């Protein structure tokens, strides 16, 4: 079997595994279902890694159904195994295995006769994400987008006994569906203009049209990007993300925050470079402007709200939003260097963030709470988890040699000095928030805050109660509270953190990422490799590497983060500033609000692109 022929297996394998799990769900004991799910996920991940390592020369391209195009026009769907796609598929695989290992002891109550429901859902999720990364066809990408969506709503609402869980899953479902339909409208517009559905084919047709892009092309980009930006949680499309992460089981959060959100960004970048980057597409300056504006808005909003949270999972969710904003700001340079920076940042962030969510999962299972104040000082003694949180916070802030620091440094280099300020500030605030939690929960630093008695403080607490999500009184995800931390949970977290560290330490990876970024941003090269025509090779840039200013800025943001954490610990339990009230009120858990904001977001994005 050639590499190309094996590409569809990255989708087919997990789906088959899921079908078998469902079919055998009645007879299979729990541990067997879990083990089988893990094995299938690991096999798929291994296949992705193998394909990634084995490839030589041009990217393998498979036309499913053997419908190879003749003279650049065909009827089939292509799967493109370029390094960006395969790399993300491998990342998906690794995170899915980690999540399944983490969830080894989760969920005491599967639906009757469906012992394998959770691993089966996760496997289908893996298939959806794998298909989305590999596909070379716009409508096919929409199909896998919806597959990811449907499974993630179900996974988010998995703990149906919790009132919040079902609400969060529902708002997630509504917002993502609206985004998906906007994307489909955009696909319809592109099909009307070009009569094609493949990325490369649409791009070629757009370029062949005299006069370049017009309002239709721009409108199509806005609509197609809407769904992807909803998935990527760019402000103001982001409202589903904090709610979903607050309520979803921790292993699901690992997948959502670790890779699914970033797949939305990947989708935006992929669609832009393959379809809209040519002469018949959308002017570069307009795209730069739009991405930069959205990115700054997203980063600032995410960082502010991250700092203001006391619900630990919600705090981590907002930090994901802040980092999405940073990725968008970096991407807005639209250069290969920026893409390799984002790629490294994204890889390391996936490891770190997933490890942090795994740590939060341990807290839920052990204490039945993820409330920073309620847990104050109670985490003494579980040093493994404390280390995960501490190192995770430092890595988020950008401590060399974590991959996050390398990615951040590269992004700063390509985005310019003004953006560097934003990068340092945002990573310091998000890292500082996590360090504040570490100091309070695991070291018992600072005051407990929000005392249970006394007039004014309690009244203030009640006042705030109405406007915040506390995180106390969570049902332990394991059904019963654990008395000790299971090795599976801690082991998966440690491995993920080590992965985040490795991204910053393996020069071979940097080289590969550099080459990948060159090919990824090559509009003509992609079309050539898919349609089998010839083109000049991509511009090769110097492989990414550490630089002195980058390390310096990384250390600076770590220092700032520590200072912020120290200040935060001291002021623990204080009232949240009044000016943040309108911002917090926007996050109301109300479907109507979220849809209204998403509409404004579409209009805003269109305005920025015009």
């Amino acid at each position, binding site marked *: 079997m050639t590499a190309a022929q094996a590409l569809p297996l990255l989708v087919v394998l997990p789906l088959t595994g899921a079908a078998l799990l469902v079919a055998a769900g009645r007879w299979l004991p729990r541990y067997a279902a879990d083990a089988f799910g893990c094995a299938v996920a690991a096999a798929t991940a291994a296949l992705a890694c193998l394909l990634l390592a084995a490839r030589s020369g041009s990217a393998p391209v498979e036309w499913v159904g053997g419908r190879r195009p003749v003279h650049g026009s065909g009827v089939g769907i292509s799967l493109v195994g370029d390094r960006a796609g395969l790399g993300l598929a491998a990342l998906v695989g690794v995170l899915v295995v980690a999540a399944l290992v983490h969830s080894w002891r989760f969920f005491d109550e599967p639906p009757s006769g469906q012992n394998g429901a959770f691993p089966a859902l996760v496997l289908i999720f893996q298939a959806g994400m794998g298909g989305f990364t590999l596909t070379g066809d716009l*409508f096919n990408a929409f*199909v896998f987008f*919806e597959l990811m*969506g*449907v499974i993630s*709503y*179900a996974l988010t*609402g998995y703990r*149906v*006994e*919790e*009132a*919040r869980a*079902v*609400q*969060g*899953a*529902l*708002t997630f*479902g*509504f917002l993502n*569906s*609206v985004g998906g*339909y*906007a994307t*489909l*409208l955009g696909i*319809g*517009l592109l*099909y*009307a203009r070009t009569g094609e*559905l493949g990325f490369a084919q649409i791009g070629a047709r757009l370029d062949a049209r005299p006069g370049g892009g017009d309002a239709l092309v721009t409108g199509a980009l806005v609509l197609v990007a809407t769904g992807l930006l909803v998935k990527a949680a760019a402000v103001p499309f982001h409202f589903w993300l*904090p*709610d979903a992460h*607050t*309520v979803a089981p921790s292993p699901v959060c690992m997948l959502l925050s670790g890779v699914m959100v970033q797949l939305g960004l990947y989708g935006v970048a992929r669609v832009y470079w393959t379809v809209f980057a040519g002469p018949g597409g959308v002017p570069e300056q307009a795209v730069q402007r739009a991405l930069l504006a959205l990115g700054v808005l997203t980063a600032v909003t995410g960082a502010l709200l991250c700092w*203001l*949270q006391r619900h630990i999972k919600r705090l981590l969710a907002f930090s994901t939003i802040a980092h999405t904003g940073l990725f968008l700001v970096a991407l807005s340079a639209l250069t290969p260097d920026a893409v390799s920076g984002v790629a490294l940042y994204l890889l390391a962030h996936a490891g770190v963030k997933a490890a942090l969510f795994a740590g939060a999962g341990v807290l839920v299972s052990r204490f039945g709470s993820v409330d920073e104040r309620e847990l104050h000082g109670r985490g003494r003694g579980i040093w493994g988890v404390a280390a995960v949180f501490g190192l995770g916070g430092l890595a988020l802030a950008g401590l060399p040699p974590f991959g996050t620091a390398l990615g951040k440094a590269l992004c700063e280099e390509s985005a310019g000095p003004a953006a560097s300020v934003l990068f340092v500030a945002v990573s310091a605030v998000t890292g500082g928030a996590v360090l504040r939690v570490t100091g309070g929960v695991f070291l018992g630093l600072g005051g407990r805050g929000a005392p249970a008695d006394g007039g004014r403080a309690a009244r203030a607490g009640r006042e705030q109660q*109405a*406007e*915040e*999500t506390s995180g106390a009184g969570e049902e332990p995800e394991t059904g019963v509270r654990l008395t000790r931390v299971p090795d599976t949970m801690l082991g998966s977290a440690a491995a993920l953190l080590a992965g985040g560290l490795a991204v910053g330490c393996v020069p071979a990876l940097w080289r590969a990422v550099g080459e990948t970024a060159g090919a990824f941003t090559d509009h003509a090269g992609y079309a050539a490799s898919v349609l089998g025509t010839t083109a000049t090779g991509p511009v090769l840039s110097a492989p990414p590497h550490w630089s002195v200013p980058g390390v310096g800025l990384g250390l600076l943001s770590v220092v700032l983060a520590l200072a912020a954490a120290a200040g935060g610990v001291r002021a623990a339990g204080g009232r949240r500033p009044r000016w943040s009230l309108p911002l*917090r*009120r926007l*996050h*109301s*858990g*109300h*479907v*109507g*609000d979220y*849809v*209204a904001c998403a*509409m404004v977001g579409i209009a805003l994005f269109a305005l920025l692109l015009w």
Partner: protein
Amino acid sequence: MSVLPYLVAGWLFLAGCVGMATSRNLIHAVGSLAVCQSSTYVLLLAVGYRRGGTAPVHSDIRPGSRPLVDPVVQALTLTDVVVGATVTALLLALVVQVAKRHGTVDPDELRELRG
């Protein structure tokens, strides 16, 4: 006439979104989402229509005898219909659970997940 179908598609999309945003009942909101989705059916099929064309099915016409409408958009719409039905089912299931756990399906009365 040359843009009427597209305008109808746009209208349905906006109407569905307005319905969702102003809904006082989550079941009604799911129904509005279905309206929103029907805009995609209308747009896709309108894009593939061809004046004077017949359905792309050769059960009663000879191949090549008449112009055909675009079969690709029809296949896409078919997929879309399935997606819509399944999303509706899943969202309704979640609404049923919201009703159980919160005792209401009015989004204004859901007081969790703030800030």
